[in-house]
């Protein structure tokens, strides 16, 4: 099961050094937990991130055959965004423009690795 406070603690640790928001989304794009200065912003990030992800994934399916989408890095005017999967969920980090893409990717990967195992175990229980 998901301990909401514990998840938030982990996400908080990643929300440093220019990272503005860290979000964990379910497969439908609804936030399970997030850290952000603004609730409103976080929900907007969640909607956009999950939308971008599912669009790429859908359109890429035919092209990439069995190879699944693993990571998205989006460079925007006012910041950079990293999106990846944790089990069947999405992890999304939103950072200020001065945070380099490399460090953003490394941070996202590290966090995803940390969350992967427990979430994998949980998903096996969710399947009906």
């Amino acid at each position, binding site marked *: *099961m*998901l*301990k*909401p*406070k514990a*998840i*938030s603690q982990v996400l908080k640790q990643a929300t440093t050094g220019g990272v503005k928001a860290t979000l964990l*989304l*379910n497969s*439908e794009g*609804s*936030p*399970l*937990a*997030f850290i952000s200065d603004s609730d409103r912003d976080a929900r907007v990030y969640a909607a956009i991130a999950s939308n971008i992800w599912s669009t790429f994934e859908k359109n890429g399916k035919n092209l990439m055959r069995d190879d699944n989408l693993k990571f998205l890095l989006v460079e925007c005017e006012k910041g950079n965004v990293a999106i990846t999967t944790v089990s069947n969920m999405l992890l999304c980090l939103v950072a200020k423009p001065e945070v380099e893409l490399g460090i953003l990717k490394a941070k996202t990967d590290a966090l995803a690795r940390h969350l992967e195992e427990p979430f994998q175990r*949980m998903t096996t*229980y*969710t399947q*009906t």
Partner: protein
Amino acid sequence: MGKSGSGKTSMRSIIFHNYVARDTRRLGATIDVENSRVRFLGNLVLNLWDCGGQETFMENYFAAQRDHIFRNVEVLIYVFDVESREIEKDMHYYQDCLEAILANSKDAKIFCLIHKMDLVQEELRTAIFDERLHELEKRSEPLKITAFATSIWDETLYKAWSSIVHSLIPNVRELESQLQNFATICEADEVMLFERTTFLVISHSSRIECSDIHRFEKISNYMKQFKLSCSKFQAQFKSMEIRQANFAAFFDVLTANTYVMVIMSDSSVESAATQMNINVARKHFEKLEVTHMPR
């Protein structure tokens, strides 16, 4: 069981068939012997015997069918009309039943409902109930009984039936402790488990005290009404979420026999997280149910 007119059909209609109390006045009186069955908690069959009308018929019937009727009884629920003018006779029938139970299903749990309490003046209710309880306990020896004062016009009926359902679940302690764990992990204020066809509360776990002691019966009632409204639109009720400024309530199917309700006052916990927890818990409680529910 219970004498004709004591309120059995009314109770059954309210608890098992989504009637509202007002409608029970339209029910026809039961003549002779009426037997009806309802299935709930998965495999449990509630067998309702209306012992009404002509006494000779009754006595013959019972003499002939006694062993058949009283075999494999898990629970006997006997309904007494508090306003009955023939208490002595009621007791006589009751003791007949007990004898048959003792002979055929000696481990059966026995519940006595002192019914139609609404007809008794409020300030006399406790005294009258205590008096009847005392009498019943004496007459029931060596069997132990549990008694409730009930009325179809208030929450007492749900309360009594919840206790009955609760007592029918073997290893209910285990279920309770698992529910407690679930509440703790979810960070919920309160978690309640409802029987699926009746919406009776089976068990609950509260981490924050709530001042309304009648809330379970009220919720049972509301949810049943809501489910009924859904079916009028040919829709099957499955789940709902209510969110207000200071709390969120989730109501969802948990297992084949139960619904769960989760109350959260911590607004920083996202809906999706709670829903996911309910999803994850489903399998676990399903397993618990398979091993512990009555067969």
